[in-house]
């Protein structure tokens, strides 16, 4: 199935919204291959209606025709106004009333046809092919094929770099998020459809809001995996805008996506299904809206000896290989690591010393005599930078039976956490 758009304006942009195979047939005519779009749009009538809607939205006045071969679609679009759909096999019947001059014959051939009284497609289509070949040659045969709607050829694709961006100038400034969502949904739907027609997905959304105070509010959302789920994109944008609202009413919206190949993954037969990336991104966005940005993610150990050194990278950040950690099971009978529960921030402590060793501890929610202790373990690092650190650590058992790690640095004593 081929579609042809005949009119003025950026016809190619409209065609590219539906198909990557677009031919610029003439200056005012564009043809595209719309085969296989039935899964996205349903029947050919619905596709034709969607193309007409899209052309109207982008302000491109165009006649649209859909037919089984490109030349029949071109003739119909150039000959009839509005939207026309030619069923396969009925091309000659539909095109019969069109003037022969639409086929663009040479001047000599045009005169000959007029002299013969051939004015319409149906007149030319009714002539015998052998007689035409004898009298008009190959050009005559070609015109007869076109008039019957039987010509077959390949499109010459237009090599135009695709830009997946949508813009919308608003008639009046939008202050509230809810009306803004409706507009974003419209832009996202258009972009998602364009990506889908090219078999692409996206892993990045770029939103640029031009504000009434001439400022620009820009947000970039990176997804963990490429996706094409417009509804999820809209929810992500809504959560992000709720967390980072624009400072003034919006007068213009620009939304762009980064086109990438869709994610192809095969799950293991005996492995539990992993969280679906876009759904997980949405869940994380909801959680971060609640607990704060940067408070949810996969922890990454930093390659330093500084205590409690880790980071939670943002989604889409390339992870750095962490330091090698000797792995041991905490419940093995052999030597192993012991799990510490951190107090963040560390609790300020008052420690009574007995012969230079801690003997009594008081801190927020903690008070007791120190029954057992091991230490001090002296650690230091980063002395070559401004962030130098140095401390003495003790492992202690209080009279209430709880085991703590305390440390002493220049600022005083602190309880770092409890062993659990």
């Amino acid at each position, binding site marked *: 199935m081929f579609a042809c758009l005949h009119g003025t304006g950026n016809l190619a942009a409209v065609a590219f919204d539906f198909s990557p195979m677009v031919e610029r047939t003439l200056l005012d005519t564009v043809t595209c291959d719309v085969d296989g779009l039935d899964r996205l749009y349903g029947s050919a009538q619905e596709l034709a209606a969607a193309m007409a809607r899209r052309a109207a939205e982008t302000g491109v006045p165009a006649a649209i025709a859909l037919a089984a071969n490109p030349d029949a679609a071109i003739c119909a679009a150039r000959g009839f106004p509005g939207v026309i759909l030619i069923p396969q096999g009925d091309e000659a019947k539909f095109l019969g009333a069109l003037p022969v001059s639409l086929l663009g014959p040479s001047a000599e051939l045009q005169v000959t046809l007029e002299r013969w009284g051939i004015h319409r497609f149906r007149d030319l289509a009714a002539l015998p092919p052998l007689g035409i070949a004898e009298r008009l040659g190959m050009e005559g045969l070609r015109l007869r094929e076109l008039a019957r709607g039987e010509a077959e050829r390949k499109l010459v694709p237009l090599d135009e770099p695709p830009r997946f961006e949508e813009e919308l100038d608003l008639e009046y400034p939008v202050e509230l998020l809810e009306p803004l969502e409706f507009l974003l949904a419209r832009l996202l739907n258009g972009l998602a459809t364009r990506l889908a027609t090219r078999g692409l997905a996206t892993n990045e959304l770029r939103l640029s809001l031009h504000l009434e105070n001439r400022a620009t509010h820009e947000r970039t959302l990176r997804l963990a995996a490429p996706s094409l789920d417009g509804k999820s994109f809209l929810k992500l944008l809504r959560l992000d805008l709720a967390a980072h609202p624009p400072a003034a009413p919006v007068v213009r919206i620009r939304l762009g996506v980064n086109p990438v190949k869709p994610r192809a993954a095969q799950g293991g037969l005996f*492995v*539990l*299904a*992993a*969280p*679906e990336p876009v*759904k997980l991104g949405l*869940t994380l966005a*909801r959680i971060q809206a*609640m*607990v704060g940005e940067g*408070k*949810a993610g*996969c*922890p*990454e*150990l930093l390659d330093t000896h500084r205590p*409690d050194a*880790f980071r939670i990278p943002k989604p889409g950040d390339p992870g750095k290989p*962490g*330091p*090698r*950690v*000797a792995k*041991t*099971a*905490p*419940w093995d009978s052999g*030597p*192993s*690591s*012991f*799990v510490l*529960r*951190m*107090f*963040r921030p560390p609790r300020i402590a*008052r*420690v*009574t*010393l007995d012969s*230079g*060793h801690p003997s009594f501890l008081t801190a927020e929610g903690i008070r007791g005599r120190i029954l*057992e202790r*091991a*230490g*001090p373990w*002296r*650690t230091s*690092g980063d002395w070559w930078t401004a962030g130098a650190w140095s401390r*003495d*650590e003790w492992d202690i058992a209080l009279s209430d039976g*709880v*085991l703590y790690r305390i440390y002493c640095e*220049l600022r005083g*004593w602190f309880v770092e*956490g*409890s*062993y*659990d």
Partner: protein
Amino acid sequence: MGAVVLQKQFESLLGGHLGWQAKPVAETVPSGVEEIDLAAGGLPRGCLTEIVGASSSGRASLLVSILAKATARQEFCALVDAEDSFEPHSAAAAGVDLPRLLWVRCGHSAEHALRASDLLLEGGGFGVVALDLGDTPARNARRISLTSWFRLRRAVEHTPTVLIAVERQSNAGTSASLVLELSRERAHWTGGAPECARLFGGMRTAIVIGGRRRQGLTPLSVRCKDLALVIGDRQHCPRGAKSAPWDSGVSPQE
């Protein structure tokens, strides 16, 4: 007519007890502690398991062991940390594959932790979702309504996720399928004087396994068994970062 009579009539019509209400027994996964797996049969999927105990009773070590085992099975895990107390270095040393662990730091809010757990369970795809209320004050944890626990139980039902709650005391009531109650017995210190030559050598903890509510129609059967386990030694220098203890450690005055 009573439900029991109706049930008997229905069963007699069908030719005997067919177990028509019985649900399949929940699949279990190993916890990483052989004794617990032998005594309790592992941790049930699609159910809530409570790990309760006082501070320093080994709750975090058991949780980390479960996470390490789950990530070793290539499962994705989520840890909802109500008090921001998770220590990634000890977890990595205990075998947790950190890229497979989603850590949610709730900044001392049990309410946020509950909502985050609910969202994660709703999203699905996790092998283990752990809700750590271990450092939450007991009075705050007690304020969590039974409805909230019931909601979590319903959210995890019919999913392959193991839901774990770490608390000071059991609060979930009948919503919990398995309760592991830990209590510290004694700590082991190795080496003698001076103190700089001593090492915190481990801890002995007792575990009481209580199955408050079994899956399916099986009546509530409380099967307790005391276990005495030794949690491993403290490895003070996990990455070789720390120097040997110093005899002449300078300690500031109080």
